[in-house]
């Protein structure tokens, strides 16, 4: 699975870091989303989908696997 976060859109709500702290973090200075990994382990898949669903500005996109 591949995950991307749009830092331009992000409003620092922290929802993603709450839903999947192993994958998402907030920048110390700005609160903007920071990915800990863009290829989360299978065990965090559910959390990543939750994060994408609760992000208020739809900044998180999940795809099966990036090809190429």
């Amino acid at each position, binding site marked *: 699975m591949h995950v991307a976060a749009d830092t331009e859109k992000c*409003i620092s709500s922290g929802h993603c870091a709450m839903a999947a702290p192993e994958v998402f973090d907030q920048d*110390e200075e700005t609160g903007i989303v920071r990915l800990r990994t863009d290829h989360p382990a299978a065990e965090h898949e559910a959390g990543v989908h939750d994060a994408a669903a609760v992000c208020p*500005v739809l900044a998180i996109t999940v795809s099966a696997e990036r090809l190429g």
Partner: protein
Amino acid sequence: MTRSSIGASGRVENDVPAFPMPRAKGCPLDPPPGLRGLQAEAPLVRIRLWDGSTPWLVTRHDVQRALLADERIGSDSLLPGYPHVSESFQARAADLQTFITMDDPEHARQRRMLSPSFTLRRIEQLRPTVQGIVDDLVDGLLAGPKPADLVSAFALPVPSLVICHVLGVPYEDHEFFQRTSRLLIARETAAETALAAQMELVGYLDQLIGRKLAEPADDLLSQLAVEQLQTGQMSRQQLAMMSLLLLVGGHETSADMIALGTLALLTNPDQLAVLRHTDDPTVIARATEELLRYLSVAHGGRRRVALEDIEIAGEVIRAGEGLVLPSEIGDRDERVYPRPDVLDLHRDARQHLAFGFGIHQCLGQPLVRVELQAVYGTLYRRIPTLALAVEPSELEFKEEGFVYGVHELPVTW
């Protein structure tokens, strides 16, 4: 389906339901039946507001979410077509604005000045302070006379003390800012009264900012005064308005969640039992989200204007048309929440719209979560015999505000 057909003149021809609508007697915690009726009818319908305007009402969860996250809608209350809550809200908007009713880029510029102070990590550091405030107030309640009014003895002091601590506002002045805040959020406050209250509060905060500039302390107002005002990023009036938003925004809403939440639990004893018998933070956090969904206290709808034509849910919203998006029905949409009128603390309610959605989603929500988790995780365990001291039918609800709540909640134990 022709209820809201519009004639060639652009005027609404047949009868468009008036908004807001009354709640059913005996169901103070459920949204107005009229709104449920409209929700069953269509995702988008026309409503009539106090000034005769007929904006769209967005009834369903998925459409509310999609529109609130859509870059083609605006929150700027100076735009023509903006569906104002009341005459006094319109008058205040024309007087002074805060970033909650601004569009990007200015909205984002101002919000980003605050977001570092509201990250999960920063707010988590406040948890012991918040817990201490809650514990002290419960001690005070137990030591005081009973029955007691939970609103004035507990529900209002918790958020008041917390936001005063964060901002660096002296709590001694709470009677002043609680009174003026209440005037500002009541829909029926006369325009002159609301403007006077706004002026009083802005004047008060302006003086406080002056004191922070002279003697910066370790609080958010001092930090903003030094980092944003002194550097010219913001005018003194802008900072006073921003402080007003933070002070007013965090008061009644959180207090209503505490008082109304307690009422909801006392009238659902099986759910109250869940909180009475747990100290598991995961259970308490989940319960908090469900209470936020169930009560969705910021009533009366998010207010927006279409900036461009938007085709959605089988309708075309024209540029310049107003939108009203009430979370109290979005959060009771059975398409998302099976048996939506049942308070079920074990359900996953995280997609609720109680804090809004999109770029204006509540800035204070991490702080609210810490507050509510401390309250819901403490009050019912410390006072397991907590009970209403009056019949539920005797309670008076804040029908007149755009934040829903109960005026007094007499409790005993």
